[in-house]
Every structure is written in structure tokens, then in C-alpha cells.
């Protein structure tokens, strides 16, 4: 190993990338960052870094949550038929919006925050004929919060949930998916997503696992780190113990014993090289990365192997039913990752470029079918976390890129609706059984406590013990809106 008297020396190229990421002396970051961070701290480089505002991989103040399970419904869930029931739609069904007492919702002045990427008749239009609710709704729990009949299981957990009915965004098309994660419109330069910021701001709690995991389909932007660098991209996983992540298993004939022997030779030779290149931070980081890789190979498949889970748990997540199994498996894996200290688990639901929840037509049939796929597993996750005492430290977020129009599109669909939509949070110190914010009677505009998507990010970061404003890197200016504001009422 490194001679004790070798001076602490950092290659400037590496120091540059380190300084840029400000992760110099953190206790651990997971992956290469961990290796570098731990080593640099040992080398005393941290003292220098500590003069600046450096994130040390630990929360900046007492956190409520340790992990986030981020559920994102791709395509645009109808807020009126999920968590923001609007009986007025039944009352005015078939009338034009102008004929209702709420004609003012169409006031162009009130709609101008939308930034149109392309004018498109097929979508992103306001639809003027009120379309009645396609499902019923009823109150749940002690709080009596109303939830649509498509989500009865989530309804049964409502006393643990804070529903936010007053979200808004600015993209009227599916670029809003990226915007929901990054806070930036599709026409803006790409910027890091909320998962990347958490990854950047916090150290890992488990050196054997990636700390930012993504499951499920993505389309418009498959990266997260952007100017933070590829080390902050989510690690894409599949719930397949045989092949959970790229290159997790040899793509050729190589027995476990041979592989172990190979890894140990690499390790031994690399350590012998330290004398040739004293003070080579990259070399030491690479040694650590190989050690981590070897452990990850085992730890990741072990985490997504469910044989130790009881029948009851499996049922809870809907693993016994065809329609709920794929999503249920991802959620069960998410719980197991969260349990092991993974910071951010991002699960996308709904295939296709635009996303499955994009019901320009056949809303009733398709939304019911999609809700069926996620309702039981999500409720199962919440109940399971709760019974294990994990809900307090695990923040579960349910989001979608925008809502859908109160008016009908074609015979049986709704169009995109960025002016008002619903999301919810549960656990991680968020209040349960409350509704925050409101849309108007038609579900058109967020009128009470409106929140841009980054307010959700700021709230989440706060629960994780991070100040949104401290997440910044030189040379990449963030605007006030990028940071968002904590939704104080729900925490």
C-alpha cells in the first residue's frame, strides 16, 4: 500500500472533477465517489475543501427520511378521477365550459404560463365540452379524504398520505415528464433530476449497493446527472435476479470461482502498482471500485431475490396476480433496497414513448386497467413499510407529469392538462390524512396554494435533511424556481 510518508497529492484533473462535484471529504458517496471521498478525507484533502461550502455526504440538518421511493405514472393521470374528485363535472356534463359559471378558467391571461413546444391538434389542447367523471369516489379513513373508486387500496392508506391537489407545470406535452424530475422545461438546457441531486447531496448508507436506482421505462431523457456528471445517473435495474443490471453477470463462460480468483488477482496487481504511482488518486479509486463491483454483483441480485419474503408479504404486493405482479415486484424490490440504505429508488410505470397513462381516448377502460396494475402494490408497499416501522424513514412519492382536461377529447378521452393536477406523498415525516391545496370546481386551475413541481423537490430534500439552495455547482446557475419552496403545510 501507499507509503506512510508520501505527501498527499492529487492529480489536478481529478481534483478538478472532484471540486466540481464538491464531494471531496464526504464520508461516503457510494460507488466511485465513495472510494474517492473516503480516500481523500484520509489524505487530508478535506480540510482544504471544507473552507468552501462543501457537502460532506451527510444530511445538513436532522433528516426525517433516509430514503425516497419515487413512483411516477407516465402519460398523465387524470387528477379528477384519482385524488381530486370533481362532482361538478357530472353536473355540467355535456355543457361547454363557457356555459358553466366557471367560464373564466379559460381566460388566456390565466393560461399563459404554459410554454408550448409545438402546436399540435392531437394533444395539448383545451377541450371545451365538460366530460363527466368516469368513475365514482368515496371517503376513506378517519380523515374522510375522497379517493376515486379506481384506487380503493391506496384509499385504505389515506390516513398516511398527504394529497397535494394544486400542482402545476408549464409543458403541455410529455416533455413534462422530464420537467417533473428536473424542474426544467424541455426547451431549457438539460439539468440534473431530483434523484441525481439527492445522490449528489447525500452519502450512501450501504457500500454494496448503488444509491440511486431506476426501474421501469423512460423515454424523453434517460439520464439524470447531466452537468453533475454520469456518476450521478441512476443505475438502471431490472427485477431479474439472473440479470439485474448491465454486466452483472459474465456474458461468457466464467465460473464463480474463476471470477473470484480473477478479481483477487486484479486487486493484488493494482495494489502492487501503488508504489509505482504514489499519490495517484485515480488508481486508489479504481481499486475501491473493483472491490465494490465485486460485492455489488452479489448484493444486487440478493436484494431482488424474494425467497425470504413471506406469502403474506408477496400477496400484499400483488405478486400472486398477473396484473399486479410486474409493478408489485418492483415495489417489493424498492422496499428491500430502501431497507438496505439505498437513497433514491425511482420507478416509472407505463410503457410507450408518451406513457401508458395518456388517455386521449378510452379513458374509462384504460385508466381503470392501469390503476388496477398499481393500486394494490402501492398500498401494499405503504402497509408493508408501516408494519416494519420503515414508513417514518421512507418517503413515498406518487407523481405524474400533468393532469387531464375537464373537457372531453373525442368521444371518450381527456387531453393533457398542466394547469392543475394532483400528486401525493406518504411517510418520511410527511403528515398523513391531509389534503393540501385545491383546484377550482372544474379541476382546471390550481387555485389554492399552487405549487410548481420544484416545490415537491424542495419538500423532499428537506425531509432528507438537505437545503435545496445548497445544491449548486459553480458555472451552472440555478434560478430561484429551480430550487422550489418547501410545502410547509404537509411536513
Amino acid at each position, binding site marked *: 500500500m501507499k507509503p506512510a510518508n508520501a505527501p498527499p497529492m*492529487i492529480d*489536478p484533473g481529478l481534483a*478538478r472533477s472532484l471540486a466540481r462535484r464538491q464531494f471531496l471529504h464526504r464520508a461516503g458517496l457510494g460507488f466511485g465517489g465513495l472510494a474517492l471521498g473516503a480516500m481523500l478525507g484520509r489524505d487530508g484533502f478535506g480540510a482544504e475543501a471544507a473552507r468552501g461550502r462543501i457537502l460532506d455526504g451527510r444530511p445538513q440538518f436532522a433528516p426525517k427520511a433516509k430514503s425516497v421511493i419515487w413512483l411516477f405514472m407516465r402519460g398523465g393521470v387524470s387528477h379528477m378521477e384519482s385524488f381530486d374528485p370533481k362532482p361538478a363535472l357530472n353536473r355540467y356534463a355535456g355543457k361547454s365550459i363557457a356555459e358553466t359559471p366557471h367560464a373564466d378558467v379559460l381566460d388566456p391571461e390565466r393560461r399563459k404560463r404554459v410554454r408550448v*413546444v409545438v402546436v399540435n391538434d392531437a394533444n395539448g389542447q383545451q377541450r371545451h365540452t365538460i366530460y363527466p367523471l368516469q368513475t365514482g369516489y368515496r371517503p376513506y379513513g378517519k380523515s374522510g379524504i375522497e379517493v376515486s373508486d379506481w384506487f380503493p387500496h391506496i384509499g385504505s392508506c389515506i390516513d398516511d398520505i398527504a394529497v397535494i391537489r394544486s400542482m402545476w407545470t408549464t409543458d403541455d406535452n410529455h416533455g413534462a415528464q422530464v420537467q417533473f424530475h428536473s424542474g426544467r422545461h424541455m426547451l431549457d438546457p438539460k439539468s440534473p433530476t431530483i434523484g441525481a441531486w439527492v445522490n449528489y447531496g447525500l452519502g450512501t448508507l450501504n457500500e454494496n449497493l448503488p444509491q440511486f436506482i431506476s426501474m421501469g421505462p423512460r423515454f424523453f431523457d434517460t439520464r439524470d446527472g447531466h452537468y453533475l456528471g454520469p456518476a450521478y445517473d441512476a443505475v438502471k435495474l431490472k427485477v431479474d435476479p439472473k440479470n439485474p443490471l448491465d454486466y452483472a453477470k459474465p*456474458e461468457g463462460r466464467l465460473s464463480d470461482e474463476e471470477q473470484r480468483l480473477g478479481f483477487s488477482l*486484479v486487486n493484488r496487481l493494482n495494489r502492487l502498482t501503488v508504489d509505482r*504511482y504514489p499519490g495517484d488518486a485515480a488508481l486508489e479509486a479504481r481499486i475501491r471500485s473493483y472491490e465494490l463491483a465485486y460485492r455489488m454483483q452479489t448484493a444486487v441480485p440478493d436484494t431482488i431475490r424474494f425467497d425470504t419474503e413471506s406469502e403474506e408479504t408477496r400477496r400484499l404486493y400483488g405478486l400472486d396476480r398477473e396484473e399486479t405482479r410486474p409493478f408489485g415486484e418492483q415495489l417489493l424490490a424498492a422496499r428491500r433496497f430502501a431497507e438496505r440504505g439505498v437513497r433514491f429508488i425511482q420507478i416509472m410505470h407505463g410503457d410507450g414513448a408518451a406513457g401508458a397513462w395518456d388517455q386521449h381516448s378510452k379513458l374509462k377502460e384504460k385508466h381503470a386497467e392501469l390503476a388496477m396494475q398499481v393500486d394494490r402494490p402501492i398500498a401494499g408497499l405503504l402497509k408493508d413499510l408501516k408494519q416494519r416501522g420503515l414508513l417514518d424513514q421512507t418517503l413515498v412519492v406518487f407523481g405524474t407529469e400533468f393532469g387531464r382536461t375537464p373537457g372531453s377529447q373525442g368521444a371518450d378521452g381527456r387531453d393533457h392538462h398542466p394547469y392543475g393536477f394532483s400528486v401525493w406523498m406518504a411517510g418520511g415525516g410527511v403528515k398523513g390524512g391531509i389534503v393540501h391545496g385545491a383546484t377550482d370546481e372544474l379541476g382546471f386551475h390550481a387555485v389554492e396554494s399552487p405549487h410548481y413541481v420544484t416545490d415537491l423537490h424542495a419538500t423532499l430534500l428537506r425531509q432528507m435533511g438537505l437545503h435545496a439552495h445548497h445544491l449548486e455547482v459553480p458555472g451552472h446557475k440555478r434560478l430561484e424556481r429551480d430550487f422550489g419552496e418547501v410545502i410547509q403545510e404537509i411536513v
Partner: protein
Amino acid sequence: MRSARQQSWIDAALSLAIAWGAGPCLAASTAADYLRDIKPVLHERCYACHGTLKQQGGLRLDTAERLLVGGKSGPAAVPGKPEAGSLLHRLTTDDEHERMPLEAAPLKPEQIAAIRAWIAAGAPVPPDEREEDDPLRHWSFQRIERPEVPTEAKTQNPIDAFLARKHVEHGLSPQPEAERSLLLRRLYLDLIGLPPTLEQLDDPRGYATIADELLHSPHHGERWGRHWMDVWRYSDWYGLGDQLRHSQKHLWHWRDWIVESLNADKGYDRMVLEMLAGDELAPDDPSVLRATGFLARNYYLFNRTTWLDDTIEHTGKAFLGLTFNCAKCHDHKYDPIDMADYYAFRAIFEPHQIRLDPVPGVVDFEKNGLPRAFDDHLDAATYVHRRGDPAQPDELKAIAPAVPAMLASFAPPVEPVALPRTAWAPATREHVRRDHRDEARRRIEEAERELAQASGTTARVAGAKLALAKAEQAKLEAVIAADTAALVAVDEVLAKAASRFEGEAMKAKAELDLLMLEGKDDEKKLETAQEALAKAEKKIAAGDTAYTPLRAARKALETPEHTDESYAATFPRHSTGRRRMLAEWMVSRDNPLTARVAVNHVWMRHFGEPLVETVFDFGRQAPRPEHDELLDWLAAEFMESGWSFRHLHRLMVTSEAYRRRSTQADADPATLAADPANRHYWRARSRRMESQALRDSLLQLAGALDPALGGPSLDAKADSSRRSLYFKQSRDERAPFLSMFDDADILQCYRRDESIVPQQALALSNSAISLGMAEQIAARLHAADPAADRGGFVETAFRQILARPSDAAEREACLDFWEAAAALEPVRQATDPEAAIRSRLVHALLNHNDFVTVR
């Protein structure tokens, strides 16, 4: 003489000394506090509008003296009276239209408190506080003058002469030259992106001779082409399904132009000219037109402003090191570039559009076509977008095309370029007619073959197909004749004929469609076909002159609502010359930026660190570099060598600075202490191979690399042995193995990341390519010396893979491994256990840090 201000500073210092004695709670704010707590805040938040760049309201805040003098509305602060001046009021008012900084977050309470305390303490002014420099005097905005090469050091290479002076100045003793084998590996990887073979490692020729040979290797263009593809944002097309939304199909033509230009050592000045204005310089030379792929890459279907914003931003960053993009919504905060400059720069690109030109022998644009730029809307006006919002153009004033005013003194005038007919009417090209005629004939022959083999109903269909093919051919001839005439003068007779033949072809198509629909229950299609038939018959009967000219190019759609038919088949007969003006200004000997930026990119890729840290921003945020004379000498030498990259590479790789050892082991302790960060290049610097170099090296060492040059991009997931730069690369398509090692970000990649993450370890351990190549490399090494014992094999493997001998401890580790592996059950059951172990050993060496590292 002491000014009153300085006196007040001394007074304040004295009062501080007194206050200090009385206890810290009475400490008054001092000039030192101003420098520490206030000036940096003013710098960050206020200087952009109240400094050397701009003096809004006549106010400058870049010195305390200036602050106290104030602007048009009087002093910003009155010493001792915090409420008297305008500064605190403007910082704290609730009126958002008044509060500074405008449209931004207010200063923090503690920052305001510090300012208040300082004013209350009499606003003590520090001595000798300097104003911000005139922005136009920024180092990189000065003309490049060739500095004198220092003569005191005995060295051949001016690079070393400049560095030696610094070494003497700082008392540094540079490292000696690296071991030859490691040096050759470095040279091979840097110049051709492939490691040397065992034979090449034993090459007895001189280092400079080998360097020269590598600089003339076709692989050199591939290696450096990939670097420039990073900088110029190469991306194959992508979109949604079949809809092209970004970049262009067949953009590989531009990639081939890059590689070929580098291999031919085309001057960088000429490369810039061709990329920005190839269509104006050589309008009928497809090999030059390829260069405008640089512009075609920025194509974006949905939003012209986004498209042009990308073009402006990356033209600025790539060639000039200027961040124009910061001046889109407001004047630049640091550089003397205002919004008017931004939109004047946009006006240069405003007329241009993109199209695919026909490639000889191909009439189907899905199969091939040449993406290129051309000026289409010659009179399109450019307006300033208020606050950067395209919905708020300032239509009162059209903006003329211009380069940034601060550097406009040497800009040539804009002069329109007359285009040859083959450029504005591609259908009149000789090969286009030949290709379309060949295609028409081919279809007839195909239909005839089909008819010959058909019987019954199929014969009717085949007959109709033949009729259609013949009608198409007749139409083609008529259209070509009419086109030819029309390009001189409209010929009514020919146009009528073309119109009639077009009608006949439409009729034949409708008849075929009807026939194909027989017996099928498709009302809608039937109706369409019947309508088409009626339309065709009407057209024939009408006998007018309306016909569709031969369409030989495909213009990229301006919006998704358009179709190919939205555009004429011919294009403007002139180009505005705006882009040629821009490019000529860029490569003018007087341009202070272009050569410096290019030289810096090349230097970074040979030395691991750039001379100017911010490779795409040479503006005022970039401090004068440590090695400014070296940079300027290289830039001047580069320009005066005819902008020859080959010359520049040769200079760099033959320098002592390049050839040094990279390790700091055995380094002079004083040197290590004086310059631990190696700012003065007293040793070489290790780097990680880029993703492409890594994969190509695996193939090369295995002898499996397919050296074929150029051609269409390969499917990103293809199992290919071609070099990595030929894989498709877009948002949606990335070669999986390459993407693990910080592959270029197609949106912006002026410098590759060098992350170190465990996924890379997994990819290099478990991928089919690393396992497969390990086996082939092992077999090759064994075949070269079948009699070698275990130790001998280890030695050869070290030399081939790491380009250095092993030491005793390393050999021992390998032999231990060998023994342990031989005892493993799976190895014992292998057909040739020794071969299996050799390949495992090679595999381990491929995972060695010093394989992925350029030492």
C-alpha cells in the same frame, strides 16, 4: 498626499484598534470587512450592471470610492448615515420594480447587515482599491502576437523553452523521459487511439520517425476525428418512431469529412470555413458540402428558435470559446456581448435550412442522401426577442447579421453568393436524371418479369403494375424535358405534356390500387382510390400546364405540419453569404480566439489538462492562464503553419514535456513540494482511455480490429469489429459497452468525464467483448511463443497489455494465480486448462488499472 477617503480608512482602523481594546462587541466595520464581506457580494450580484461592463444609472460599485460617489441619483451611500444613500434603500425596498438586483433574489439579510454596519462605521475605503479592468482588455480578446521563444534553456522545442523558464523560476526539476515502451504506448494511443503491438514496441526506429508515421496513418484521422466529434456535437438522427426530430439521417457523411480532412491535414481555417459555409464556398462540390453537417446536426423539427439557439451556442463555444447563450435573454453578465450581439449572430444563421441532396446512384433518401445546409429564406428578418421570449419579438427593428461588436473591426463585408444551377436545382444534375431514369427502367423490368411469371388474376395486377411503371417513365421523361425548359423559360407545350403524363401516371396508379382492392372489404381505401382515379382523369382532360417538377432533394421539414410537398423542388439561386462572412472572420489572422481555443483542445488531449481550464469559455470568467505565452506562441505557430494540426501534434508529442514520466515516484522532493499539482508540466499526467479507445484497444490487441474506414453508421448494438466511432450515437442509440465509460454526451462534450464507478469494473469484467478478446489475445500471445513457460507468458502478457515488464512481486502474484486456477474444478475440466488459465490471466490484466490508464 493622502486622500480624504484614505484618511477616513485610517481613522476607522484607529477606531477599530480602540474598539478592540474595549471588547469585540463594540468592533466597528472596517475596510478589511468591506473587502471580505461586502466586495465579493457586490462583485457577484451587482458588477454585471454597475461595473466596468455597464454603468446603469451612471453607477459603478466596483470600488468603494465609486460607490460613495454614486450615480445619477446621487451618492449610493453617505458615510456614517446608512439611511441617507440610495444603496440600502434599493437593496431592501418591497417594491419589486425598484429592488436590486432586479428580477433576482434579494441579498441575504446578513449581507445587507454587513453593508449597513460598514456605512454606519463611516464606510472606510481600503487603500489602492483597483477598478475592474476594461472588459475589452481581457487577455483572450487581444490579437495573438507571437512571443519571443526563451533562449536561455538548451532545448530544441519551443514548448520546452517556455516551460523551462517556469521550471527555473519555481525551482522545479522535471522528471526524466518515460520508459520507451510506456512512451510508445502513450504515443500510439494519443495519435491513433490504438496500442502498439509487440512488434511495434520493439521498433528500433527513432521516436520522431515513429511519431511521424503515426501522424500519417489513416487511424490518426479516426482518433482525432472522434475528439472533434465530441466538440462539434456529432449525433445521428433521433426522434419518435419514424418521425425525424433531431439531427439528420446519413450524418455520417460529415463524420467521414472530419476523418478525411484530418488525414489530409486540411488546414483548420479551411475546416471552419467549410463547416459553416461549405455551401457558399463550393456549392457544387458534395465532398465539401458534407462539412455543413455541423449545421445539419442542430436541426430540430419542433422549434426554430431552439434549433438556432443550439447553433449559436455551440458555434460560439466550439470555435470561439464564447458563451453567447448567456446573452439570449439579457446582456451577458461577464462578457461584452449584449442581446443585440446575440440576435445579430442569429441573423447570420436566420436564412439557412437543411436538406438532403441526392447522392449518385441512389434515389431513395431513406437509403442515402447528403445532409447539408443552404440559405432558403433569404429575406427572413431577425428580431430581438424581449427577455428571450420568441413570443415577444421586437418587430420595430430588424437586426442585421453581424459578428459581436467588440471584435467586429476585422469582419469582412457580407456579400451574396450566386449559386450554380446544380446547387439550386439539384434535379438538373446529370446523375439525378440518370438515376431516376435507371430507376424507372428497373421498375419496368421488374414489372415485366412479374408479368411473365403471372397468370389469372395475378396477371391482371402485374399488367396494371407494368402500366403504372411505364406511365411513370413517360411522366419522368416529360417532367425532365419540361424542367429543362422551365429553367430557361417556361415552355407551355412541354409543361402541358408533363401535366398530361403526370395525369396518366396518377391514373395508372389509381387503376392498380383499385385492382388490388378487388374482393377486399375496405370501403375507405376504395373510395380514396376512386377519387384518385377521377382526379387523374380530370387532370388529363384539363390539359393545363400544372405539373410537379422532378424533386431531387429532400428539405428537412420546418415544422411537423409540413410535408415534402410543402416546398418547391428548387431552391434560391443565391446564398446570402452571411455564414461565409462569419467563417472568414473566425479564421482571420486578427481573430484572437479561434486559434487559441483550438490549440487548447489539442493540448488538453495530449497533456491531460488544458492550458485554459474552461475549454469552451475564454471570456472574462477565464483568468489569464499560467502559460499564456506558451498558448500564444502555439496559436501563432498554428496559424502560420497553415493551421496545420499535424504540425501542432508533432510539436507537442516530440516535446520533452510530453515525453516525461507520469509518475511522481522518485521525484525531486522540492519539486513535489513546490508544484504538487504539476501546473508546470514537470511530469506527464496519467489519463483514462476514452470509451472508444478502450474498446478499440481490446480489438486491436486481439488482432480482431476491422480497419475499414468510413461509411454508414453501424447499429449501436451490432456485433462489429469496426472502430467504435462508427457506431450510431444519438439520444436513443448508444453502444452499451461504450456508454459505461463516460461516452460523449451528444448535447455538449467539450471535455470527457473520467468517472470511476463500479459499473465500469463490471463491464470490463463481464462483457462479452472483454472476455472474448481476452481469449483471443491469450491465444495470440501463446502462438507467438508456444515454448514459453508460465513466467515467460506472464512477461509477454505484461509487455503487450501494459507495455512494461513485470516485477518480481507481480510475477509471483500471477504465478500464484496460475496455480490456484489450475486447482479449480471448472478449469480442470476445460479441454485445455493451460489455455483457459492464460486467457483468465490476460483478462485480469485487461482489468488492471494501467490498462485503462494512459501512463
